[in-house]
């Protein structure tokens, strides 16, 4: 478990939390709106806990004070736009990946990280129950979203030391049972280089902080 891997985890959570929060008030129905807003708060809180571990004196500066090239999230998490099916599919693929990552944290030699991971793990079980219920309900209508999200999801594993096969063993049978065809694709890598969606996200996410970095929020 390296600091770089922990930073990647914190950045993943922050970007997903931000993207989920963009649905507040705009999701297709009110229950989805409540759920996505709550998911966003959870992911943001997990990010905050990890940034605090990495930089106890100034977690905000770590979260919002870096240049775009210094962020280490996977491309899956920066994708924006108003595609609800994509958001649902992304959340599921990511939350199963995260379950694996939390196990990695729980096995680390860092007691503070293990304590945070323990807490994350208890909250995340609600994410997976919710994700699975939505995926099952929407079924094969999610095929275009899955086709788009799949190669990006494969890119989650870059540099994490986690085994993609372990994740596939969970998601492939479930996706198949929901009537979806798992695409064949190469992973889209990019934890160190980000696309145009991130430029927009970064401006939105960090603009207020950068306007006065000395302020305590």
């Amino acid at each position, binding site marked *: 478990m390296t600091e770089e891997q922990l930073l990647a985890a914190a950045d993943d959570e922050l970007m997903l939390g931000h993207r989920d929060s963009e649905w507040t008030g705009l999701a297709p129905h009110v*229950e989805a709106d409540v759920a996505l807003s709550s998911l966003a708060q*959870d992911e943001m*809180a*997990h990010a*905050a*806990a990890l940034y605090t571990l990495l930089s106890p004196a100034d977690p905000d500066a770590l979260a919002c004070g870096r240049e775009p090239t210094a962020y280490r999230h996977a491309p899956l998490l920066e994708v924006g736009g108003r595609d609800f099916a994509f958001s649902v599919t992304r959340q599921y693929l990511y939350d199963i990946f995260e379950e694996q990552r939390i196990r990695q944290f729980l096995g680390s030699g860092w007691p503070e990280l293990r304590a945070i991971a323990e*807490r994350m793990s208890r*909250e995340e079980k*609600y994410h997976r129950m919710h994700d699975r219920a939505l995926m099952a309900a929407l079924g094969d209508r999610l095929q275009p979203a899955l086709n788009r999200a799949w190669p990006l999801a494969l890119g989650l594993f870059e540099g994490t030391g986690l085994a993609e096969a372990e994740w596939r063993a969970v998601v492939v049978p479930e996706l198949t049972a929901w009537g979806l065809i798992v695409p064949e694709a190469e992973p889209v890598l990019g934890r160190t280089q980000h696309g145009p969606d991130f430029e927009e996200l970064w401006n939105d996410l960090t603009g207020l902080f950068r306007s006065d970095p000395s302020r305590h929020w």
Partner: protein
Amino acid sequence: MTEQQAYDALARVMDPEIPTISIVDLGMVDEVRVHASHVDVALLPTFLGCPALDLIEEAVQKAMPGAVVTFRNDPPWSTDRITEAGREALRQFGVAPPEDVVRCPRCGTEEVLSENLFGPTRCRSIYYCPACRAPFEAFKAI
């Protein structure tokens, strides 16, 4: 001030979002140390990054002037730490306490429907009780 007096003071500090339950009954108090000059209070946040922590810290300081409040994640808080009195206080507020089986806090039936695993705050889910013909919230079991 004795340790008992400190706990009595903390028992009057209510959760800002569920004002019928104290932080003692929520199981948030991990350690109290009484010194000649002040009291150290170590609290366990219920949810990671819970936005109510600043309010709770202020309320503790109001109940016990000069108290030094710290938050720690180890040991991890869990809903198992909520006391029996705390569970009753949740029901009084209309929130089903965290249990393996969710029961309507009004009539007690287990015949309830899950409406949304998420709710108005991060710690609560939304259910519907057909017998009472009314929705209710349940504390997530974490």
